[in-house]
């Protein structure tokens, strides 16, 4: 498998998805919105700009965190396409959280710091994540993505048979999409949150990493809950999933930080009740 081609393709598609996301949100709010290739323009614009490291920053951390973002998601993409362990991908999801903290903390800027603090707060979203992973293992008996895909070929798609788990995963992915109601780390009152001080080439690199992230998360959801499909179908299914999220993002205000956490804890309680229910009912229906 040409891993490099897949990564580059995923970056392009991810950037395009971000653009479509913005366009849809704008149209729902009856604004014209930017063109869908706006995110490419962003990356180009940031890379043409001057780049330096702020004087107050912790230099090594400031620079190293950007390649870390790209590297972890590129690794997650490889694991996804080779049908490796689901645990690795969601390990990467949590590692992404660490890079978010690092982004905000490294610059010394108060806005970045606030973004990092909110990012630590929103780490409660990993609890529904763990609940849904345990739920998937509970239902399918394996965490290898290839096994989960094979299970769905035999037993029907998990989106229908294990809806609460899919719901929990949906909330997790929603909390990482731009303009999400859970996106407290980049709320407008703290400028760009933890990305504030990363400008120029660093910001362009971050956009590339985040594009990879969006693509991987959407593709993981589709693969986990709908099953194996040809590549073009995967892209279309991811796009439809993204569009549902665009509607939510366009129509909901951003939650206040602790309310976002509380709602995510509510989701885990639903998943736990569901798992207790199927445990008592004796396995899957």
């Amino acid at each position, binding site marked *: *498998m*040409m*891993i*490099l*081609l897949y*990564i580059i393709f995923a970056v392009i598609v991810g950037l395009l998805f971000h653009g479509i996301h913005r366009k849809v949100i704008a149209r729902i709010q009856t604004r014209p919105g930017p063109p869908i290739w706006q995110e490419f323009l962003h*990356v*180009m*614009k*940031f*890379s*043409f*700009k*001057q*780049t*330096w*490291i*702020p*004087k*107050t*920053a912790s230099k090594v951390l400031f620079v190293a965190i*950007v*390649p*870390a*973002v*790209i*590297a972890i998601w*590129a*690794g997650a993409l*490889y694991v996804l396409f*080779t049908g490796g362990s689901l645990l690795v991908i969601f390990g990467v999801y949590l590692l992404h959280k660490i890079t978010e903290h690092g982004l905000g903390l490294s*610059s010394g*800027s108060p806005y970045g710091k606030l973004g990092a603090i909110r990012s630590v707060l929103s780490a409660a979203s990993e609890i529904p994540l763990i609940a849904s992973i345990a739920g998937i293992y509970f239902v399918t008996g394996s965490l290898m993505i290839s096994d989960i895909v094979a299970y769905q070929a035999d037993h029907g798609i998990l989106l229908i048979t294990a809806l609460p788990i899919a719901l929990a995963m949906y909330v997790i992915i929603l909390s990482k999409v731009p303009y999400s109601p859970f996106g407290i780390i980049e709320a407008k009152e703290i400028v760009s949150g933890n990305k504030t*001080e990363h400008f*120029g*080439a*660093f910001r*362009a*690199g971050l956009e*590339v*990493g985040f594009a990879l992230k969006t693509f991987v998360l959407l593709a993981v959801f589709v693969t986990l809950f709908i099953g194996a499909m040809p590549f073009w179908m995967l892209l279309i299914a991811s796009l439809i999933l993204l569009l549902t999220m665009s509607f939510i993002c366009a129509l909901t205000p951003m939650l206040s930080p602790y309310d976002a956490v509380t709602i995510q804890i509510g989701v885990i309680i639903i998943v736990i009740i569901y798992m207790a229910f199927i445990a008592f009912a004796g396995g899957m229906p």
Partner: protein
Amino acid sequence: MIRKETEKKISKDQAKAAALISAIICITASALAFTGHINGWLGAGIVVVAFPVFVLSLFTALRESTKDGDYPFVGY
């Protein structure tokens, strides 16, 4: 933030060289993994490490100018 005037800067040539080298590493590793000369996970590991370097050095090489006074996107 205040710009530190005495900062050592990476020249465009250095950035270009880094981008070229990391691109070659990426392509070689993924090609070798594709043809089966090295393990798939090893190839992926190399690409995962080299690709971010490629992205960052490419963007650093693309930057418009190393001198002050050139703000192409100020205003609309």
